[in-house]
């Protein structure tokens, strides 16, 4: 890697790691189903950014583009299903607290 690319990578790398930390913190701390889904979204955004940067550095912009678009499509499907589950949980429990989702254990 040349110096210029290295510099680009370090700037993006900082934000990627920041997004990872924010997402992980959010996922660990939150007690709300929708916030957990948002945390997953933040984590996926971090990965998407990483893919774009990697594509730029290695000169595979076309590959990175197709990858990122596919990731976005799949992520939307996952969020829709998570939203559906959250809605059904709300209809049963009247709130979105994950602490009330503890019927299964043993």
């Amino acid at each position, binding site marked *: 890697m040349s110096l210029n690319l290295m510099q680009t990578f370090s700037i993006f790398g900082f934000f990627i790691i920041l997004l990872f930390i924010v997402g992980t913190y959010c996922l660990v701390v939150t007690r709300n189903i929708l916030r957990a889904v948002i945390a997953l979204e933040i984590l996926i955004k971090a990965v998407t950014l990483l893919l774009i940067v990697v594509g730029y550095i290695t000169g595979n912009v076309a590959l990175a583009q197709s990858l990122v678009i596919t990731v976005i499509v799949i992520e939307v499907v996952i969020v829709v299903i998570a939203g559906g589950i959250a809605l*059904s949980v709300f209809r049963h429990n009247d709130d979105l607290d994950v602490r009330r989702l503890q019927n299964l254990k043993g």
Partner: protein
Amino acid sequence: MPSLIILVPLLGLIILNMPIGNFMRRGAFWFAIALFSAQVLLAVFHHSLAWTGKLPPVDALFKVGFTIDHLTFIMFICIGLVSFSSLLVARHAMGDEGELFKFINLLIIASVGMSGIVMVKDIFSLYIFLEITSIASFILIAFRKDVYGLEGAFKYLVLSAVATILMLTSIALFILVSGDTSFSTIGASLQSGNRVIVMLAIGIFICGLFIKGGVVPFHGWLPDAYMSAPAPVSILLAGIITKAAGIYTLIRITSAVFGFIEPVKAILMLAGTVSILFGAFAALGQNDFKRMLAYSSISQIGYIVLGAGTGTALGIAGAVFHLFNHSVFKSLLFVNASAVEKELKTNDMNRMGGLSYRMPITSATSMVGFLSTCGIPPLSGFWSKLLILIALWQTGHFAYATIAVLASVLTLAYFLMMQRKVFFGKLALGLENVKERGAGIMFVSIALAFITIGAGIFFPVIYNNFLLPIKEILVK
């Protein structure tokens, strides 16, 4: 030609869902039956022309590269068999025709996803098919929309999304090192790449696969999902989805991309052994029939990972054979558990007892299933465990081999407890009117039991025709 395995079900789904009358809904069941039977038959007779022929117009349109080898054939057989059993059980478990139709759609999507997983040769298509399978299984777990199903589905969704994020991160790192996504290019460039990045990527990827496969310490979602899902979905999840998504991918990626390097082997064997012990001890303490089977699954998956961790041709053959056996006998046990659940309206083993008087076929086939799980000759489970043990002994891992043998005794212990509580002893109060389930479920139980017995007795044939050629995945 292999692309037809993906395209035919997808086209069928589109046609079945066209708004041209209700007869399509009734046709869906038979379409799925034909699909899964064709898949199993084509894979069993894999010397036929169907796999090597070319269809230029289709290949020109559908440009995903697929590869077919003997590991793929065994996975095709497992996918077809388990989906078939799940379908027949669903027909009896779900009264409503509309529900059955929805279930069949999701089942076909899941099986397309799994067929894709076992055929791909680049890491990006692998990710897509893994997600197709996972998305279908989230919906399947929450199928009844009850509180338990939603909880199980949500736990699986969150952990599976985390696994996906880990895998994508590692895919990005692989692209950084090699500049491409195909297995062979990545595998070739791993030796020359930056050591830290390569090890980080491999570690992250293996963690993701462990989550998908339910290997300890990432097993948290697995008992909840198996227990809360409707009966046909439990069969599908336990029988094939976790294995295709987690364990098969682990074997394929390790042999084709990472290579069996020492750190990978050490991680696999350690995780496998911990899973064996943890699953067995946790299963001993369960009162819920399906939850006990789920922990038993974790334990048996440990054997598969342990066998794959040896990195020798024999170890991988043993692991793959145990994978096949486990999908057959765990499906059998879940079919029987679903029959018992449907009759008694409960899964609590303390409220059962003496069911062998009322359900003799369920009881007898359960016995075949659990004896095979424990590795009693001549049933098929004995041979796969024997292969794994020989491979461990040959590579000099005596401690792991000893633990694996002793854990087999634990397996026998919890299954004997299960059999005594549920089927043997005096008939429990209030169970006088229990009957065998319908012919469909009994047919599935008996067929799976015969496959277990047959695979044990005709082991040499299977070994020579299906297991021995698997070593071709090691020579790259």
